[in-house]
């Protein structure tokens, strides 16, 4: 999970800017409750992505409330596409092996 957190966060921001708590909610509802991450994990991770230039944070004031929103940068979109491709390759390979049902070819 930890190794894929960055990809999940970027995917949650793909449709548009969100603030930290909204990212956590998006991951929770989007995964049907499977990924219920500690909120304290999300915020430093968003700052890490910002430090790497993959997301850009900005303050927005509305209804007397100051809130920090994050959006994907162009570099973030490229990184997300790479993460997706890597995950599809990995998950396809794992599924293929797990679904063999004991029919592994023996070495001569």
């Amino acid at each position, binding site marked *: 999970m930890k190794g894929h957190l960055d990809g999940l966060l970027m995917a949650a921001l793909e449709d548009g800017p969100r603030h930290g708590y909204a990212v956590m909610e998006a991951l929770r509802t989007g995964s049907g409750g499977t990924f219920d991450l*500690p909120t304290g994990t999300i915020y430093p991770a968003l700052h890490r992505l910002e430090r790497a230039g993959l997301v850009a944070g900005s303050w927005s004031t509305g209804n007397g409330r100051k809130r920090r929103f994050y959006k994907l940068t162009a570099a973030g979109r490229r990184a997300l596409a790479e993460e997706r491709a890597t995950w599809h390759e990995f998950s396809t390979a794992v599924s293929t092996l797990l679904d063999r049902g004991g029919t592994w070819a023996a070495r001569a």
Partner: protein
Amino acid sequence: MGGPGIGAALPRLAPAARPAVEQYLAEFERALPGSRRAKAAIVAEIGDGLLAGIEEHEDRGAAPAHAAELAVAEFGDPRDLAADFAAELAGATAHRVGLALVGTGPVVGLIWLATFAAGSGLSWRDEVASIWSAIPAYTFVLLLVVPAAMLATAGAGPAARRLRVDPRLAAAAASFAAAGCVVGDATLITGLVAVSAHRAAPSWLAAAAVCVSVIRLSIAAAAARRCALLRAAAA
């Protein structure tokens, strides 16, 4: 209680929810290293996140006090959260310090070269050779400090993505490079004093070189300390 960041985060909070949130943010702010401005921004962001969490739990039927307890629990131990943020602050600070050192190094170096050359009447090549032979340790300083400053720049930005340098390592490199800069500038100033004893009175160029180095030395010393503190606090 707490700094300006906490006040900015709590204007919409119900009175019953305040004690839990104020205590959490106060403990978080105490454990968080960094500049006042950086801390205030992070505390305000976490405060807004707590408020969002409280609203979420209240929408599900929790009373304000209980909603606050649930929201605080979701964020986890404030000291652990502060340590995670310290790592990010360490990387970002290291990046800025590294860029400043790499950017000012050649400029300050050229001012000193011109200063020594103007005072001796030698060509700049002969002057460089003269300085190197008089202060051989300076070569050693440069060979260590310049790579360290460049490593520090990888604390953030495209280099951070490509090289995946640990922010604590970047902060250590920044601290080392800044400390080396202090040694280097002090060596140059000392060298000028020693040389001035055998030459004509120092020129305005020499005065400018000393000023520039004193300023850079002071800023570098503060930066070295700040990076060391952030690295120590990082998770």
